[in-house]
């Protein structure tokens, strides 16, 4: 029995709107910046959640897909194409919305690919690469899959780090804003921050809805059966390889999309986004959120990313992250929300316990 999760999404949307209004009212709109960045990173983690939590496949290389998306967007929208200047081809492409003439930060004229066209190119490239890598890699299991995906991520990292056209170690800067529709511009500029906030979170919520739909559908059931036992699933006639690949490709596309959006928001991208540390962080956030728990993953990922971006932990940022990780996994491998829920329920019971005869909230609960 499927029902669209309107209520939870409604609650989330209300909470987000409340946060924004609070922030604006108290003059603290700058918090929205980190929330926006956290939203996009959460999309990456959500995609990975589908792959790891539901399909049970590990990927230590998703930073590579983030970089493929982000760098493609960045390179195409910052590279001047001199051949397009005086030619018919160039004019036609400009009218078609693929190329655009604009000025860079210093006032020089340039013709570059439009962000929308660049996004399409990034998605196409990610699709190709994820199919190419996924098909052979997903036949591997466990540690070998981990190594293969890690290797993939590292190869992407080394390529962008070593290549001039990708800006080498400094990455690419001055990436232009992305005008998605006339009213919606993805950019880090202060003036459009609130709009960007809703755009980012709208995107994240759409992703959640999409993933809920997927996991409740046939695909989701197939993935869960694969996670439970691949041989058995195969014996039942489920085309495990196909479903695994599907999950891999979906997560890769989501990651790359987040990469594009964040690149335009930040106005740049750098090699460390492809690195092992980032990929590992994504995996850790999925695990910390409870693996197969979309809402849990969203909350944990947002909270931890937000705190890290705020610099709340100062020089201990990585250490705190590591400690939280170890704590959650060892104490609450299903994710921290269950114990929190249990605790809140117990607290609620304790509060209600004063009133006689009210056992409405009492339920037996297994730790």
């Amino acid at each position, binding site marked *: 029995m499927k029902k669209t999760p309107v209520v939870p999404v409604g609650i989330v949307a209300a909470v987000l709107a409340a946060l924004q209004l609070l922030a604006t009212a108290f003059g603290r709109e700058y918090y929205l910046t980190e929330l926006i960045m956290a939203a996009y990173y959460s999309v990456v983690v959500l995609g990975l959640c589908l792959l*790891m939590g539901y399909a*049970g*496949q*590990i990927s230590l290389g998703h930073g590579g897909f983030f970089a493929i998306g982000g760098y493609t967007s960045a390179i195409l929208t910052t590279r001047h194409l001199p051949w397009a200047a005086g030619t018919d081809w160039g004019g036609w492409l400009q009218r078609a919305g693929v190329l655009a003439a604009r000025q860079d930060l210093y006032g020089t004229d340039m013709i570059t690919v439009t962000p929308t066209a660049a996004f399409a190119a990034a998605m196409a490239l990610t699709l190709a690469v994820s199919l190419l890598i996924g098909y*052979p*890699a997903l*036949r*591997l*299991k*466990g*540690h*070998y899959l*981990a*190594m*293969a995906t*890690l*290797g*993939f991520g*590292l*190869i992407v990292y*080394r*390529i962008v780090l*070593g290549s001039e056209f990708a800006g080498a170690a400094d990455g690419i800067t001055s990436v232009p804003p992305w005008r998605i529709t006339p009213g919606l511009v993805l950019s880090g500029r202060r003036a459009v921050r609130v709009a960007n906030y809703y755009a980012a979170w709208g995107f994240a919520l759409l992703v959640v809805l999409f993933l809920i739909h997927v996991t409740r559908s046939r695909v989701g059931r197939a993935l869960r059966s694969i*996670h439970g*036992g*691949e041989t058995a699933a195969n014996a039942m006639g489920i085309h495990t390889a196909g479903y695994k690949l599907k999950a891999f490709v979906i997560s890769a596309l989501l990651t790359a999309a987040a990469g594009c959006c964040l690149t335009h928001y930040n106005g740049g991208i750098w090699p460390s986004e492809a690195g*092992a*540390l980032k990929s*590992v962080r994504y*995996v*850790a956030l999925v*695990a910390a959120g409870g*693996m197969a728990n979309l809402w849990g993953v969203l909350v944990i990922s947002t909270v931890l990313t937000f705190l890290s971006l705020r610099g709340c932990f100062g*020089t*201990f940022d*990585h*250490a705190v*992250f*590591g*400690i939280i*990780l*170890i704590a959650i*996994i*060892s104490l609450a*491998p299903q994710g921290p929300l269950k114990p929190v829920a249990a605790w809140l329920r117990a607290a609620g019971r304790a509060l209600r316990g004063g009133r006689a005869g009210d056992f409405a909230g009492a339920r037996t609960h297994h730790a």
Partner: protein
Amino acid sequence: MHQLLQYALSGVTVGSIYAVVAIGFNLIYRTTGILNFAQGEFVMLGGMTAVSLAAFVPLPVAVAGAVGIVAVCGGAMEILLFRRLRSHSLLHMIVITIGLSIVVREAALHVWDEKVRSLPYFTGTECSSVRILGAAISPQVFWVLGTVGVVVLALHVFFRHTLTGKAMRACSSNPEAAMLSGINIRNVRTLTFTLSGALGALGGCVISPMAMTQYNMGTGLAIKGFAAAILGGLGNPMAGVAGGILVGLAESFSVSIMPAAYKDATAFAILLGALLVRPHGLFGSNGAEGAREL
């Protein structure tokens, strides 16, 4: 000709560093099934501790001290952390050891600091050089290779001819049967981590004069060591040595034919290729080690 030899020597030098890490990886994996991403940190801790001790005591004592201390840390890690874990899913283990490596690295940053340090060369100085058929290497390389060789030999003897070693092998092939025979699995696991820590630390000390020791050197080494272990075949410490040397040679020779900027990408590409063709590694047996699912 001596060029090729020089490249080969470079590759072996660097490869032996990876081999040291791979041995530790394989040891733990084989006996406990855990992939210890914090292995690189043992190497780092060994070097750092030895450098700190070397300020007060002679070099050999410092090295021995460092090995001992890190070995204890390894055992402590097992007792405090891994014993208590309720979930044994592969993914959780990987994530925990990753978290652990992060914490250890950051702790090292705050205990020592970000500066690069090194032990003095065991024999000779920074400039000494040994000539072999026209190629030249530092005498420290002999120390590294020698240590790796001695370790491999010692492990071989240990596993085949000592009771404890055989107990460890028993635990890895069939834990239930081992328990039934009266082997204390928990102690064996602690011992494995202790041993692995000791080996890592020894490696860290012996490479410190050449490769320098820095608080964040562990991560890169762990990745390369992991790659070496997989290439050789997970779970086989000796094969890990071969894997390490091969990775090192691949990197070194790739420099001779293409820009050095892509050296690491080449190594990983070769590794990926090998994985896709022969996933259980060069010396691994089909199915047995690698089929473990999440």
